[in-house]
Structures are given as C-alpha cells and as structure tokens.
C-alpha cells in the first residue's frame, strides 16, 4: 500500500477506535479462556477431591460436567468473537477503507 493510503488510515480516528475496541475484546476473551483452563488444571493438581464429588445419588462426578463445560466454553468464546469481529469490527474496517478511498 502506498504511503498516502497509510497516512490516511493512521489519521482516521475510526482506526484508533477499531484497534482499541478489538484489542481489548480479544485480550478479554483470551484472559477468560486462560483463567477457565488454568483454574480447571489447578483444581485437578491441588484439589482433585473437588472434582471427585458425586452429583446426587448416581456415580456422575462434578468433574465431568465441568470438563465438558470447558470444551463448550472454548467453542462459545470463538463464536462470540467471530460474531462481533465479522460484524461490528469488519464494518468499521470497511468504513475506514471507504473513507480512505473517498478522500482521494
């Protein structure tokens, strides 16, 4: 891309807004995933008895729904990010590109 286009993007306040919003969102979701996963691992490492507790009368333990929930959370988080990035963030990106083009 030419220097000209690039200066225009940089000067566009929408670009700063896009970067700020998206970075914050991406890092927030990353931290959620890291916290969920490492909490799961650390419970297993330090307090396995927590997951070995039975739910109700049967043999099913707490660890099983929690483990399956970690898998589902991972998938749901990717869905949440993709939804917002492919909608809101891509619209903003598109707008920035339009601004750059129309300003020429």
């Amino acid at each position, binding site marked *: *891309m030419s220097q000209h*286009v*690039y200066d225009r*993007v*940089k000067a566009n306040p929408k*670009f700063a807004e*896009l*970067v700020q919003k*998206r970075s914050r969102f*991406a*890092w927030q*979701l*990353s931290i959620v*995933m*890291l916290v969920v*996963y*490492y909490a*799961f*691992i*650390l419970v*297993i*490492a*330090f307090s*396995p*008895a927590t*997951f*070995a507790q039975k739910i109700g009368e*049967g*043999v*099913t*333990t707490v*660890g*099983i729904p929690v*483990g*399956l929930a*970690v*898998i*589902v959370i*991972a*998938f749901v*988080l*990717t*869905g949440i*990010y*993709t939804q917002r*990035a*492919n909608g809101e963030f*891509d619209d903003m*990106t598109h707008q*920035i*590109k339009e601004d*750059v083009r129309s300003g020429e």
Partner: protein
Amino acid sequence: MKWGLLLLSLSSFVFAADAQFSGKRDINVSAIVMFLIFVLATLGITYWAAKRTKTAKDFYTAGGGITGFQNGLAIAGDYMSAASFLGISGLVYLKGFDGLIYSIGFLVGWPIILFLVAEQLRNLGKYTFSDVASYRLRQTPIRTLAALGSLATVALYLIAQMVGAGQLIQILFGLDYEYAVVMVGILMILYVTFGGMLATTWVQIIKAVLLLSGASFMAIMIMYQVGFSFETLFSQAVAAKKSAAIMAPGGLVSDPISAISLGMALMFGTAGLPHILMRFFTVSDAKEARKSVFFATGFIGYFYILTFIIGFGAIVLLTNNPTYLDPIKGGIIGGGNMSAIHTAHAIGGNLFLGFISAVAFATILAVVSGLTLAGASAVSHDLYANVFARGRVDEMMEMKVSKYSTIALGIVAIFLGIAFEKQNIAFMVGLAFAIAASANFPILFLSMFWKKLTTKGAVWGGSLGLLTAVVLVVLSKAVWVDVLGNKTAIYAYGNPAIFSMAVAFIGIWLFSLMDQSEDAKKEIAAYEHQFIRSQTGIGAEGASAH
C-alpha cells in the same frame, strides 16, 4: 509430572500397541476394500487438483479461495490425528476422567489462535508464517530460523506419524511394517506433489467428515444402548471396572509445574505449528480466517466429546468381554489404544471395524500430507526463494523446488519411519509442541504485537528458546531415561515449555532492547506500517481470480 510424561507417551500409545500385540493380524478384507475406495477417490481428487494447480499461490494456498467452513473442516482434519482418535479414546478406556483432561488441553489453544493470531496472520502473510515473522525484519536470518523451527517441528511430528502409521496398519490390515510406511510415503508424495494445497485440503476435509461420521455413529450406538443417559453409561462403566476411580482425576496431574508447563506447550504450541498456520492462507480474508477457527474449534471439541463417550463405551463393552481380552497378557488385545477399534467391532461387526480401520488410515494420510506440504514450503519458499535466491526467483522455479522438496521429504520420512521402527519415539510429539511453543510462537507473536522487536532479538531469543526446549527434553525422563537408559532424569518435569518459553520471551526482549543498530531503528519504524496492514487487511494477499 505424570501428566507431562503422558503427553510424551500419548503418541506412543498407538505405537506401543505393537509391543503388546506382536505379529500380524489376519488380512482384513473389508478394511482393505474401503481403504482402496478412499485411496482411489483421493487420487481422483489429486488429478482434478493438479489441473487447477498452476501457480505458486495455487500450490501453497489452493489459490486462497477455500471457504471458512471448508477450511474449518480441513483444519480439524489436519489436527485430529490417529493418535488423538485411538490414543485419547484409549486413555479414557484405561483412565476414564483423565482422558478428558487430556483432550481439553488440545482444544484450548484454538480460541487463543483466533483472538490473537488468525486474522493478523492472514492479513500479513502470503504462504508461510515466516512471511509474517520476516515482514519488517531482515529476511535471511529470520526466514532461516523460522524455516528451521518449521522443519524441526514437521520432522518430529512426521516421524511420530510414520512410525504410528506403520504399526497401526500392521495391526489393522495385516500388512508388513515396511510396506505400510512406504505406501503412506508414496501416497503423501503423490497428493502433495501433484495436487498441492488443493488436494491436501480435500483429503483433509474428506478425512474429517469420515472420522466425525464414524465416531458419531459409534457414540450414538453407545448412547442408544444406555438409553441416552450418561448416568447409565457411567454406572455401567463403574460396574464393569468394579471401581469408581475412573470418574475422578487420577494421578495424571500431581505436580503443578508439569501441569502448567504442559498446558502452555499445548496451548501455545498449537499456535506455532507450521502446518496449522499455513492453513490460514488458504482463505480469502480475515473474515473467513475467523470462521475457519470457529468451525474448527466446534468440530475438534465435538470430536473430543465423542472420544470421551467412545472410551466409556469401550469400558462397558470390552472390559468383561472374552472376545476382546488377551488371555495371556491380560487387558484387551493390542493394548488400550486398540479400544476404539474393538468397540467398532463390538458395535457394528466386521464391516464397521473395516470402516473405522480405513478411517484411521485416511486420518494418517491427511495429517502427513499437511505436514509434508508445510515442510516443503519452508524449504522452497523460505530457504530457497527468499534466503538462497534472495527473492530473485521466478514462480515456476520456486514451484519446481517445492515439488522436489516434497519428494525429498517424503523419501526422508519413509527412511526415518523405517529407521525408528523399534526406537522409543514417545518424546517426539511432545518435543514438536515444545519447539513450536518456544521458538515459532514467540517470534510470530512478538513480530505482530511488539513494536520494539528487532532481528537480533528474534534470532537470539528464538534460538535460545529452541535450544532450551531441545536440551530440557533430552534431560527429561522421556529421553534421558527411556531412550538413553540412564537411571534418573536430570530435568524433573514432564514438559519444558514453562522454562523454554520464558527463555525465548526474555531473550527476545533483552536482545531487542540491547540492539541499537541503524537496522533496528528502521525495523521499529516499519512496525506502524505493518500494524495498519495487520489490523485492516489493506494490502493483504487476496484470492486468485479463478
């Protein structure tokens, strides 16, 4: 500690079957027929793909026109290896809940790839992740290091897959080990050399569909037998095992350092696997790249839930069934990782056993093809075109080099596969993930997110990370004791990532800050340009017109 070792030995789960089940099985006709159908279909696709693979862009990225959904399936096909299908269901069969801990580790890297890597990678790169790492840094040193990191990861992963393939096929089809390895090698050379990324992608998509369908059918049949109640499934499993230990965490995670270290290797290693990163260049833009990860995470997560059900189903169906028990050695015939195969037989007889065996073989082919293509690209695009020829090379020549590299890599893989037949290779997949997490990932990540990264910092820090990972694995139990025969391991933990990643990041940070050269100033100044492209996709590679 135990957990870390388990990662290292997971790859050997499939492979160790051979030790327990020596000798060949009777020739399995339905498996061979179904496998031949798969081979003919994929060779047909390769012929079709070859006609459409004319430019370097076609060869490396299938023209960039794969959709997010297709790519999600292909990524799943690239990532779900035979070791994860047979190994994880086998682990659940043997240890119950602990198998679930394992598969979760393999899944959680994907959201991180999406949030932090995928779209920037797509916006900045062309064919390989080295394109991104060397975007504003000096081509020769960065590409050389990134290519070495890629080749090391690919080679280790490939050897593990080849040896696993040989031993698995020996058991499933009754073929000799050498024949099996040569056949896998020749097929992957054919797919990649003639069909490039397009053929590789479709082999991976077909394999993913077959594997997910086969595993779904097994899981549904198991759930049908227990009235679709997990509680019934679990209580029958506990009754079969005469122990409720399978319902709780066992000794898999005992020391937190190994647990965290393994978690880091799996999470960030996934984001540094060259054959996975390469898949992001096959889609047209960042939007499709995000969709790819969304679908891939869904398919892979679903698959791990299926393997969990299959593992518990195996406990119910096999534990007390004399048909599948080894009267001499105890346990099931062929060891724990044959549990999915026996379960297939218990559910659907010889025909379904044949189908699942053929799927396992297809799985291996899809994974090794992706690996070979990534390795060949590191040689032709990074080392040849950009380092050796310094970018002054025509496309036809680069493609020729990539095809020769594919053939050479395939032959090397065949020889290594045969040479390592009787070796203990349990450490290899663990080492591949550790190198990916400690060399490839830090360089890639910091090149995208840290302005002050310089060539010197990336080369020194990346090399130190790679070296630390290799040295610590050699000093750990998996190599020092199990391969070299020493009594006790010098490095006490199962996985090096917690230390080697720290070394890489600190090294890159330190050497970048110390670098006051003119080049370094230019590299830092170029960050803004790179950042705008990575965020907006302005100037990014598009899809080819056709």
